[in-house]
């Protein structure tokens, strides 16, 4: 598997993503936002940062970048896309994922470790993860408060599209374990086909013991264990 890590003006986690993917053997290149060439077998990563200064709303301007039209085509053809933090905001603004990410209910920028419970066997991003073993990795955001209307939330639950929830170390989705006010403790969601994932926590910042843990790599390993090629979403399983 190869990866293309998108770089918008204001992106700041692109090199971290390249490094993290390298630790599990995924070779990656950085893809400037004006470029539009994405190979069918590439995993597209939309990393964290403050694309275009996050003016107007987080991710609102980035969605008009030339690269985003290519990312949308890639996803429509079944290609894998993951948006992390600002990348999640971009995918929601682009309408590629449901819902929106609002100001944290604490009004504070939260930079801390969280625990996540994987909640979906439908996607190759999460299929190999053990729902009983919470993953520990950092968050680092001011606008990660996930909102969608009730019928959308019910649908996400019914369709197993909640990829991750904030939980405590024991795996319980409590109010205390929720760092930003996200409805139903949602930390990450999947698109309908399961090939597009958005998540606020940073798996690339939990990629080796020196950083305090390598739980983030479990997501890349889940992908590596999945069938190769474009059709790695839920539709084929």
């Amino acid at each position, binding site marked *: 598997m190869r990866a293309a890590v998108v770089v918008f003006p204001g992106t700041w986690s692109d090199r971290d993503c390249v490094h993290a993917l390298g630790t599990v053997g995924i070779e990656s290149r950085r893809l400037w936002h004006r470029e539009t060439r994405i190979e069918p077998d590439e995993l597209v990563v939309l990393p964290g940062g403050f694309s275009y200064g996050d003016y107007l709303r987080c991710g609102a301007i980035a969605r008009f970048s030339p690269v985003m039209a290519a990312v949308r085509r890639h996803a429509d053809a079944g290609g894998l896309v993951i948006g992390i933090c600002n990348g999640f905001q971009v995918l929601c*603004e682009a309408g590629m994922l449901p819902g929106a990410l*609002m100001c944290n209910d*604490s*009004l504070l920028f939260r930079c801390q470790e969280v625990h996540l419970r994987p909640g979906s066997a439908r996607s190759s991003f999460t299929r190999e993860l053990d729902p009983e073993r919470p993953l520990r990795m950092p968050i680092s955001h001011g606008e990660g408060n996930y909102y969608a*209307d009730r019928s959308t939330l019910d649908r996400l639950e019914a369709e197993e599209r909640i990829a991750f929830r904030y939980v405590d170390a024991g795996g319980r989705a409590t109010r205390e374990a929720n760092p930003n006010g996200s409805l139903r403790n949602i930390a990450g969601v999947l698109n309908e086909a399961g090939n597009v994932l958005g998540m606020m926590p940073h798996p690339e910042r939990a990629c080796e013991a020196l950083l305090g843990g390598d739980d983030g790599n479990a997501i890349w390993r889940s992908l590596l264990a999945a069938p190769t090629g474009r059709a790695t979403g839920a539709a084929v399983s």
Partner: protein
Amino acid sequence: MSPYVAHVTVMLKPLVNDPAGLAVRDGLSALGFDGVEAVRVGKRLVVTLSAPDAEEAARLVNAMCDQLLANPVIEDFVVEIVDGASDTTAAAPPS
């Protein structure tokens, strides 16, 4: 074509929680404004544009809101069109 100015107000939908509004409300209470029941924080955008008439200007700015200025998942918007020649709130267009 005539100059128009659109005053766009973007607010979170009534059912969407507004942490900034709650914080401002608490701040007002701390200052002693006892009667404040609720505060909602929104955005105001002033768009200067040329259009054949006010109706077309309104149509264009509503389309801008649908596509960019507001996020329909969480926000509502109101557009008010005023005559550009008489409006003093708009920024001078770039030269």
